[in-house]
């Protein structure tokens, strides 16, 4: 038996290809949306992986440093270093801001990293060009996604930094590229006030009789001095020595230091489950809407194509064609349309949409397989209306009268 659907598709190939192309662009957007979600999750994991930490020590009862503000004194690391199972500790600050260069600016997450050597928690693990930060001030390592090049001078707050190294795939959970600067500079940048505000604060402190006591010389200067430095960091990153269980070490830190500690799994849960949860829900809703729109389009197209063949279907039924042959004709056409659409969608998502999209789009093979199955199911469901219409066609229509 010949394939009626195949012959009809070959006969009206232009209609099918162009319809499939339009449907394919819609499927491409759907695949890209799924890829954006995967990219967000991957960004979160990359941030955690690249931090080089096994534990994140943050302000008590917060879910910092990525999902909530967290402040710890910058000498807290000394106490943690002495805990059993701790191999290495380092302070870290994170500040998302606009980083300026030559009149333009880039959205970036600025990380303040402790002095150390490559492998220190918080340091970028791999450079694609240049070198690590070796000076205590005004050097930066930037992700290539910032568009900065080696030797570029960028401005963060009031200070200028020379880009000495470049990394790749060092991004925040929002997908913003990261810029690493020395910790002290980052601490200063985090709470830096403008000069008017500083002068006003000094004036207010001097006007406060509690600080300005003639009988206590040096008190006012000491009070002002505490206001001009930032002794806080956002978190302490901890590497656990081999052979030690991070959970046990985390429990010890929580119990003895009254701090909140997260393991890698807990921090991933915070990032994926809380930080990007709203975005994930939005993307899921878009996926649902796009799937419904795709279904409606396929159903409409197949219904229109079927209505255009009512006379042929009546003739086929009159000459004794079985219902299953007519069902196969419509369903195979619907699935062929879906297959054309999926191929176009996959190609457009991979070659055109993902590379130009401003966020990282991660197209997983498994998602493509699931997407293909979903498209086929949608096409089968969408063909049901047309099949019902075709089965209702009276063979007597071919005779007329």
């Amino acid at each position, binding site marked *: 038996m010949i394939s009626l659907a195949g012959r009809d598709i070959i006969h009206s190939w232009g209609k099918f290809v162009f319809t499939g192309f339009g449907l394919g662009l819609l499927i491409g957007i759907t695949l890209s949306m799924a890829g954006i979600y995967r990219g967000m999750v991957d960004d979160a994991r990359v941030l955690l992986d690249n931090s080089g930490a096994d534990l994140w020590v943050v302000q008590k009862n917060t879910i910092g440093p990525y999902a909530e503000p967290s402040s710890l004194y910058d000498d807290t690391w000394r106490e943690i270093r002495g805990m059993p199972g701790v191999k290495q500790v380092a302070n870290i600050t994170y500040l998302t801001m606009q980083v300026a260069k030559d009149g333009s600016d880039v959205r970036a997450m600025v990380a303040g990293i402790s002095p150390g050597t490559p492998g220190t928690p918080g340091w970028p693990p791999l450079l694609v060009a240049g070198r690590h930060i070796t000076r205590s001030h005004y050097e930066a390592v930037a992700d290539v996604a910032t568009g900065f090049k080696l030797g570029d001078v960028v401005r963060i707050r009031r200070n200028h930094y020379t880009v000495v190294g470049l990394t790749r795939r060092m991004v925040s959970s929002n997908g913003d590229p990261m810029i690493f600067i020395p910790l002290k500079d980052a601490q200063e940048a985090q709470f830096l006030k403008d000069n008017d505000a500083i002068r006003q604060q000094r004036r207010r402190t001097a006007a406060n009789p509690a600080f300005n006591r003639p009988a206590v010389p040096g008190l006012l200067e000491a009070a002002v001095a505490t206001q001009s430095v930032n002794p806080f960091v956002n978190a302490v990153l901890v590497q656990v020595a081999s052979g030690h269980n991070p959970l046990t070490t985390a429990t010890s830190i929580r119990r003895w230091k009254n701090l909140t500690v997260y393991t890698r799994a807990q921090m991933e849960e915070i990032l994926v489950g809380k930080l990007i949860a709203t975005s994930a829900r939005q993307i899921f809703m878009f996926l649902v809407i796009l799937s419904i729109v795709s279904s409606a389009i396929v159903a409409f197209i197949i219904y229109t194509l079927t209505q255009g063949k009512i*006379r042929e279907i009546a003739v086929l039924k009159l000459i004794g064609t079985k219902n299953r042959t007519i069902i196969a004709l419509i369903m195979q056409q619907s699935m062929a349309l879906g297959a054309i659409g999926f191929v176009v969608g996959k190609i457009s998502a991979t070659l055109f949409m993902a590379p130009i999209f401003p966020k990282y789009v991660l197209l997983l093979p498994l998602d493509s397989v699931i997407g293909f199955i979903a498209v086929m199911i949608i096409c089968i469901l969408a063909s049901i209306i047309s099949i019902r219409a075709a089965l209702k066609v009276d063979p007597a229509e071919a005779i007329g009268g």
Partner: protein
Amino acid sequence: MSMKGIRIEGLKKRYGSGDTAVDALKHVNMHVEAGEIVGLIGPSGSGKSTLLKCLGAVIEPTAGKMVLGSDIIYDNGWRVRDLRALRRDRIGFVFQAPYLIPFLDVTDNVALLPMLAGVSNAESRKRAMELLRELNVDHRAHAMPSKLSGGEQQRVAIARGLVNRPPVILADEPTAPLNSDRALTVIRLLNDMAQKFETAIIVVTHDEKIIPTFKRIYHIRDGVTYEEKGEGRSPTEMAT
């Protein structure tokens, strides 16, 4: 009455019920021998289409009897279980318009019926080609229907009606869209095919130019048939 052909006795068809009931067929008697071609003539609303649908097992009559060959197919109820198979294997249809499947070429339009009946593709196409040769359209075997002239399309439609060697063919105004010469050619072909394949052919028509070719004519008026002797003129002579 031979064991071939079709015989209809006291066929009735009522649409609706109660006060709104309409008797489209009140009393229809017909018989058409194998190899014979008869005309069925009547004004609009006389019941021609209803009769054709009953004969084609598309709608169920209300009462009566239909015998196809030696088989009773209807006797106050269908006597065959699979009406689709009945239509596919034992009734051929030729319509006013050819209604060829636009996405199949000429050969496959004709070969589709045996394929639907389970005959292999190769055998079906062989049968189709033989018929196309008989009807002198084999040179267009691989053309799509849209590339054929009206006459060629109608010949392909006749081939499709004949391909399963049905004992009866129902032709619904097969010459309506054709000019005189082509109409007479179609009737000649139907005559030839009826005799060659021993098929009984019922031609429903309004077409004045082909009516003199029938040896027997059934008139239908208000759902009742009346038999009349026709002129039985040769379509070939009429054309010349």
